[in-house]
């Protein structure tokens, strides 16, 4: 899930004020101010090639962004060369090719992701040409028209591009997340290196999101819990802290987490790499799951029905054998790194102090055990 980390409107005499409260204000160089942008009095910046740019300095919030979403409203006035929209130094790049095709790439120096045709192998991604567009037609950014452009790297399996909210390019074969932004920071309408790819035209608004690193906690603790339940979970988290603090246990514990994380990432990638329909259907199930979990309805008929639908969906999408393999992977991690002796013991009291969670697991057991077997 994503959180907004930059929002420029350029309404205040063109000042690059970050209204997202993340202090990602921008330094403007050689840009003009246009009082009327995509709407009257909305404010916009005029880029005239060369040194025109808005530069945002690097800050901790740009470390390990994993997923990146960019939304911007632009009026392109000239092509003839690559026109940069937003680029993070050695991290992500959103630009318009000289032929008007929209591109979104990211830095993958280990070449985990297969190369994208006509792109540096270290910068894979997607574009709005026929090879990546859902309708197999080439889509270009129009000239002299206010246009909303969107880049979305989901952090795990896809880069998707949108023109005016219509999907125009997608690559579901991504194998790496967006790395940390380099020392040159983030440039709007300009390349972090030099003046060669500067935008020509007007930019009205820019929004950037990243993966929210706190989302696992936010999601888990959104459920209403009483004092006993919370204390119960606090003990488990404290136990994990003790394991991390212990020199001998911590290596094994971290190895267990890495092993499980890898398995989970593969599962999520397998789901999301199936394309747009799979992503949307999963998002719909996830939204229902969030609503039920966060309202505390985790062991009733609604959750039972949802878990059943989720199970049917995963089996239809990935197959029973895939789910069994995923299960074996996790169990192998568990055995290799002593999960039962460490985390299993820590969690032993959960059934007593948080019976709702125990009931939720019972629902899952009834559904999945026949498929996963023993």
């Amino acid at each position, binding site marked *: *899930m994503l959180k907004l980390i930059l929002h420029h409107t350029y309404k205040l*005499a063109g000042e690059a004020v970050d*209204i997202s409260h993340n202090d990602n204000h921008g330094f403007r160089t050689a840009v003009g101010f246009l009082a009327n942008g995509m709407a009257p009095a909305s404010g916009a910046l005029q880029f005239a090639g060369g040194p025109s740019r808005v530069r945002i300095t690097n800050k901790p919030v740009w470390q390990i962004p994993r997923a990146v979403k960019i939304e911007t409203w632009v009026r392109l006035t000239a092509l003839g060369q690559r026109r940069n929209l937003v680029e993070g130094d050695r991290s992500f790049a959103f630009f318009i090719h000289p032929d008007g095709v929209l591109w979104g790439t990211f830095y993958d120096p280990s070449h985990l992701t297969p190369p994208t045709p006509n792109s540096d192998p270290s910068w894979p991604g997607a574009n709005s040409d026929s090879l990546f567009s859902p309708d197999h037609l080439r889509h270009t950014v129009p000239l002299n028209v206010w246009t909303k452009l969107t880049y979305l790297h989901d952090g795990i399996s896809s880069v998707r591009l949108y023109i005016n909210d219509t999907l125009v390019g997608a690559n579901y074969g991504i194998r790496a997340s967006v790395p940390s932004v380099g020392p040159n920071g983030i440039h709007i309408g300009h390349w972090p290196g030099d003046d060669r790819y500067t935008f020509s035209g007007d930019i009205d608004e820019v929004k950037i999101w990243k993966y929210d690193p706190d989302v*696992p906690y936010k999601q888990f*603790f959104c459920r209403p819990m009483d004092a006993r339940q919370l204390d119960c979970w606090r003990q488990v988290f404290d136990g994990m802290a003790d394991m991390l603090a212990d020199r001998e246990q911590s290596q094994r514990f971290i190895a267990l987490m890495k092993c499980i994380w890898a398995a989970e990432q593969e599962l999520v990638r397998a789901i999301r790499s199936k394309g747009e329909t799979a992503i949307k259907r999963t998002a719909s199930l*996830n939204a229902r799951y969030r609503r039920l979990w966060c309202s505390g309805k985790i062991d009733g008929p609604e959750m039972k029905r949802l878990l059943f639908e989720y199970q049917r969906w995963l089996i239809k999408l990935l197959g029973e054998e895939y789910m069994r393999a995923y299960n074996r992977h996790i169990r192998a991690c*568990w055995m290799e790194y002593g999960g039962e002796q460490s985390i299993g013991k820590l969690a032993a009291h959960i059934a007593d102090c948080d019976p709702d969670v125990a009931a939720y697991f019972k629902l*899952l057991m009834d559904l999945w055990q026949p498929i996963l077997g023993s």
Partner: protein
Amino acid sequence: MALTREEQNKIIEAYEPIVYFHPEERFFPVKPEAYLQASALWHSQPPSHKKEDWGNGGPGFPRTPDVEKGKLSVNPADDGVGGKTYLGHTNPDGRTPFLTSNNDRELWLDMAAWKDEAGVTDTSKNEACNVEGALTRWTTEEPLKMAGDWYYAEVQDLDTLTGILATLQQDGLDLGKILRDTLGSAWFIWYYLLYPIHQENLRGCEQVAGAGNNGDYEGDWNAIGIIVRKPAKLPWEPGGTFPDPQYIGFGRRARGLVENFIPTFRQEMQVRDWHEISRVGRHPKVYVARASHNNYGLFGPQNPPAITPSDASCGATEKLDEEVKKKLDDLQDTVDTVKDVAVSVLKIGVGCAIGAIFGGIGCLIGAGIGAIAAGIEAAVDNDDSDSKPVDDATKAETERDHPPDENNYGRVLVPQTLTATLDDAAHAQEVRPWAETPDKHRVDKELQIWWPGQREDPGYQGRWGVMCQSDPNDRRSGIVFPNFRRAFLIDLAIHLSN
């Protein structure tokens, strides 16, 4: 031309706020000099602030403060007289040991010590401030009882704000030009309020043992900012009047944890157009939230600054956060993994435990079931949607700040001219004028050494409340005087950009 002291006094008086407190409010704004002189002064060693290194003494315990309670003075004439120490005392080597606070040696005040313990010994916990002790002091001790209903105010114009505008320019914002273009010449007036204690439950966690006081700290500064366009004919000139302000900023704060486990104290000044707020003439009505002392332009429950992850878990993950933070420097990729997968590992662990207990299927198969739960969790976490909380009216209500409800006010502090005429006085428990006359409330950095200042004249840079142990998110230790001016200018820019 710079404003004279008399002109500043007149401006301060003209826009003096009317401040409404909740009927259940227990702490009211006090005189900083009384607060300081009632406090002990300590130092500690950042970033761990282990109590073994607090103040003087040792090796070992007990630890003693650098300056004992009752011995600190803000009057230079007291230095070395009767065992007193001047806050601005200068050593022969030129150091100002009771003003200078930095990453090597941090200063902090101790006004009412810690909950259930006055000292720092090998067995003392020193984990929370002493709320009840502070209340007792300010309601029973004679000099402190008389030091209430107070604010300090300062007036600046764009010419005297050049320092702060220059630092904003280093962040990319040329606000000086914008302000000159939009306001021409203007007065910026800050009203500063110091409360002995800030109380803040971890939101939505009131029922959780141990979490209820997780955001309490000693020495709570807040502020109200007002911007007035300077009139062509000045008010003290014949025929001149004070104009209505353009904007007002309501100080409020968010404490917690941000990216990479960096504790944050974010001072916000929510800016409103003057015409949007309630007022009596040129005096704004400010509604103060119960216990947190966040300021609002409206009565009734309000949404506080953004919730932090620490709030979300009612502190349940703080110890884990602390351990992860320790590994931040050398294990960055691991840290990322730990944050991401801790909940998943737990779900697998629960599956294991439950499988072993009543599933009749053993831990390993139970763990496999837990893996499904973890997989769903991972799919949710990696969704493209916004991570804003799911709407939950009940939960949202418990997380709100509580300024007084309409027509149900506790104490109301008013300009002296309004004491008898306040329109809603009948709905207040008591209406009191601000103590003394407005000229006594003007910030004078030459005489009042506690205000943080510039490089040559640093002022007191330390924290205004006790340091607390086991406080990884820096929620319960005292705060330094917040940079209200910077916050106001940035939030004004945000307001004008929205």
